[in-house]
């Protein structure tokens, strides 16, 4: 018996940000306080609802909302372990990003429009996390494309508009391929719903068609996950304001792609079927190429945000790599990295935003001695950068370790080579930044901080929260409640079913 709350909670999780968006759009520009209050109420409620769902889910409750869309086809929102991981991550990071964005955009134009679309963006992400079938997934996936566009072009400069055009070119193209795949799948398998272990066994004999569908679906997702050669939009989208970049890279867009790949491999095709179709190895190779390529390109950038952008290209593919290697260790690594990368990357973008907002620093060359002027921000940056490199005890180490072990366990030792290569490259593009920031002397002394400590607390606190979280996730990785611990449990469940 499913109670009312269990029917409605998934809807409420989505509604919190949707309603927030609808309330914010009509606000006048100067209604700052009301807008901020609404934002914070929405973000807080969402976190509360997600916590309730998490507790309930661990108690064994089933959360599912269902609305008939067409006869025989429902819009389904449901909670399962992987979706819970993504849901929790998004809710928490939205909360901190909202605080950050309020501080960051204190004097910007068109804030109602910005925060409206910002909330819609989270609405779409929540929908993606909770989608219980392909049809629902696609609706929110495309909605995400549309509502992030105004954020990308928010500044209204020619460069921003061009970036927006490129962004749409990639994402709408990817969406179109995905739609063909979805309709094709529906025509051979009927309306199927995600379920742990895969749901396509009844059509497993139609191999060639399934391979075609897998390719279409994963290509569509690869655009958002920025897998080479479909990553071109991402560095350009850096023209967006910093909170948008943070959200796009850590939570919403690229993560939606990576999460989709996890979901399709584990809950739609299922690992055994996907493995038997021989589609996972090519995917692993694509991911590996992306990991190396992204790192090399990052090395070549002097603009800090662009360097981080290419770093995202590389890091997100760890998740895809984990999904493409069969075995509980790699799966653990993938799901853990989904959360770890979110925490670390959002910290890095917050820090980059702080540098830009406080000192107008955009490029690595300008960062000489910035660690002395903004020690806290730079300290957090350092933590996150070490995490990205994979240095213990920050979170990134744990996920890389599991990915490597997973590769070994699956007799794919080349994964180790990819990981080592990427770690070297990561070091090569992060360590010089750290060196410059801490040890080089500024050409001109930095302007004094004034009354405030370093920078506005609205910018510093969110950054500190995520940075410390990334550190704690690594230090306490062995705990049952850490991202890694959760990932281990999810992976165990996935493979239990199989064995």
């Amino acid at each position, binding site marked *: 018996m499913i109670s009312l709350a269990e029917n409605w909670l998934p809807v409420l999780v989505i509604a919190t940000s949707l309603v927030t968006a609808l309330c914010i759009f009509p606000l006048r520009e100067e209604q700052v306080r009301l807008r901020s209050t609404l934002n914070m109420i929405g973000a807080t409620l969402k976190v509360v609802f997600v916590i309730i769902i998490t507790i309930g889910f661990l108690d064994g409750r089933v959360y599912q909302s269902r609305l008939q*869309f*067409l*006869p025989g086809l429902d819009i389904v929102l449901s909670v399962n372990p992987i979706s819970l991981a993504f849901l929790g991550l998004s809710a928490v990071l939205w909360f901190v990003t909202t605080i950050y964005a309020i501080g960051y955009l204190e004097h910007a134009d068109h804030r109602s429009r910005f925060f409206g679309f910002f909330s819609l963006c989270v609405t779409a992400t929540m929908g993606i996390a909770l989608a219980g079938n392909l049809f629902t997934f696609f609706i929110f996936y*495309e*909605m995400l494309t549309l509502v992030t566009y105004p954020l990308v072009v928010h500044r*209204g400069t020619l460069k921003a*508009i061009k970036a927006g055009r490129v962004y749409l070119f990639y994402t*709408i193209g990817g969406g179109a391929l995905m739609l063909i795949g979805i309709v094709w799948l529906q*025509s051979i398998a009927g309306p199927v719903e995600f379920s742990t272990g895969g749901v396509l066994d009844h059509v497993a004999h139609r191999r060639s068609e399934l391979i075609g569908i897998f390719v279409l679906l994963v290509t569509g997702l690869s655009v958002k996950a920025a897998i080479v050669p479909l990553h071109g939009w991402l560095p350009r989208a850096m023209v967006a304001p910093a909170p948008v970049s943070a959200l796009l890279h850590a939570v919403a867009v690229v993560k939606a792609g990576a999460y989709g790949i996890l979901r399709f491999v584990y809950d739609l095709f299922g690992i055994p079927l996907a493995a038997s179709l021989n589609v996972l190895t090519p995917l692993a190779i694509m991911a590996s190429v992306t990991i190396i390529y992204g790192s090399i390109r990052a090395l070549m950038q002097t603009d800090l945000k662009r360097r981080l952008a290419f770093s995202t290209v590389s890091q997100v593919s760890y998740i895809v790599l984990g999904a493409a290697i069969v075995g509980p260790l790699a799966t653990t690594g993938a799901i853990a990295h989904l959360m770890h990368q979110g925490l670390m990357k959002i910290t890095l973008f917050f820090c980059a935003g702080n540098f830009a907002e406080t000192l107008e620093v955009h490029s690595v060359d300008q960062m000489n001695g910035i660690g002395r002027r903004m020690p806290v921000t730079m300290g957090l940056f350092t933590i996150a950068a070490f995490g990205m490199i994979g240095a213990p005890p920050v979170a990134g180490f744990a996920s890389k370790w599991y990915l490597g072990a997973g590769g070994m366990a699956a007799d794919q030792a080349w994964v180790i080579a990819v990981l080592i290569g990427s770690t070297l490259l990561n070091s090569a593009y992060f360590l010089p930044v750290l060196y410059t920031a801490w040890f080089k002397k500024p050409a001109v002394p930095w302007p004094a901080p004034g009354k405030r400590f370093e920078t506005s607390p609205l910018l510093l606190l969110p950054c500190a929260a995520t940075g410390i979280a990334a550190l704690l996730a690594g230090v306490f990785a062995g705990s049952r409640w850490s991202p890694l611990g959760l990932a281990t449990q999810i992976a165990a469940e996935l493979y239990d079913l199989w064995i």
Partner: protein
Amino acid sequence: MRDPSPWVILIPLTSAGFALLLGHRSIARFGVVAAAFTTIASAFLVVDVWRHGTRRYPVGGWDAPLGIELVVDGLAALMIAMTAVVGLLISIYSFRYFSDPPDLTRLRESADVRPSIGEPWGQSRAFWPLWLFLWASINIVFLSGDMFNIYVGLEIMGVSAVALVTLSRGAVATLSATKYLIAAVIGSMLYLMGVAILYASFSTLDLQELSVRIEPGNPATVALVLMSAGLLLKTALFPLHFWLPAAHSAAPAPVSAILSALVIKASFYLFLRLWMDVFMQTTTRSGAVFVGLLATAAIIWGSLQAIRQIRLKPLIAYSTVAQVGYLFLLIPLAVPIATDSWNVSATEGGVYHAISHALAKAAMFLAAGAVMQALGGTDEIGEMAGLAARLPISAFAIGLAGVSLMGLPPSGGYVAKWLMMNAAFDTAQPWWAIIIVVGGGLTAIYMFKFIGLAFRKPVEGSSFLPSSAWLEGPAFILAVLSILVGLRATPIVELLSK
């Protein structure tokens, strides 16, 4: 109201006649009230069909073989409802649009402001009777169960539509209207010849009776070809679209909305009716595929032309050319291949597309009209940088309507696309699905060309006048509706099956 079907025709028809007597001041108010009553009658009609299924109403108490019947099934009810919703909002918009000329003195002094299109400010006396006549004739086409009666409806529709185009001042409008009239007349004459042949061969004008009596053979085929050609011309399917872009972009904004959203749907509806019911046995696969190829060409050609446009209204008009292609894609998807019945999913998709296109396109033209007034009469896209900041409601309306036209979820256009693509795969013709997707991409190109510009920073010195909520509001509501019909398709699909 025991049976609401005649009222949806009688109310606009008599109001149109009465409106001719009214003066400039009262006519707009009267027109909106008449539109509201027509909408109420339409709502009764839809509820009636929802409860009781298909209804037949013998006009004047005479039954089918002798008298004229009005027939309302789910499809007709949906079309009536679509016309009512769109018509009412256009009426509210027109109340303001045709009565008050904007305050041109407040525009910047520079000579750049040229009223490139003679906007018909203050022409409500001409607008309202024509619009109400047009509404009545559209409803006649939807409801009539009699082939000849439909012809009369088509002819009134054509003439009043052309007359509405001439409300725009200037040579361009008159010339466009003339071409439009010629196309409309050829279309209805081809249709009438088809009717004459059918009557000569099967001795009935009643649609239902005819679909029973008709036998495949030369007369039926000739009639099918003539009538189809006539209706394709009236619906402006490529390459018979030549008259549409000029007429739809030269007309005043609310008239453009009426033409693009409703008028072409009436002839499309008739085409569908003929292929689905009357000529079920006469149509062939090759004929259907031929229509499908024309539809494909329409999608591609219309979109490419839309991409090239530098003015907003021609862009929207060419978008209609492309979207008409989508409507006719339902024919190759629905005409049975091996079985005996139409593909339901394709029909649902086509009808859904008709509805969401009506909402979205009306929203777009109305918003364009509001923007043009705010710019003092120009619709050059280059002047519209910064629209999202200056007229956010209109910009939003165009954006949301664009989402529906692109067929991206959640929107009515997406539902249509989903249903049609499903039909393509179900009937083992996946290539149509690819065309649908490619068309969506092309639509995205021309829509975002505009939307991107709207997000630009306003050009130094450009001046938008503030717009009125009476203009922006209806456009925005229509755009929101085009999204909302995509949230849950079940009610519409169920009504269609009544």
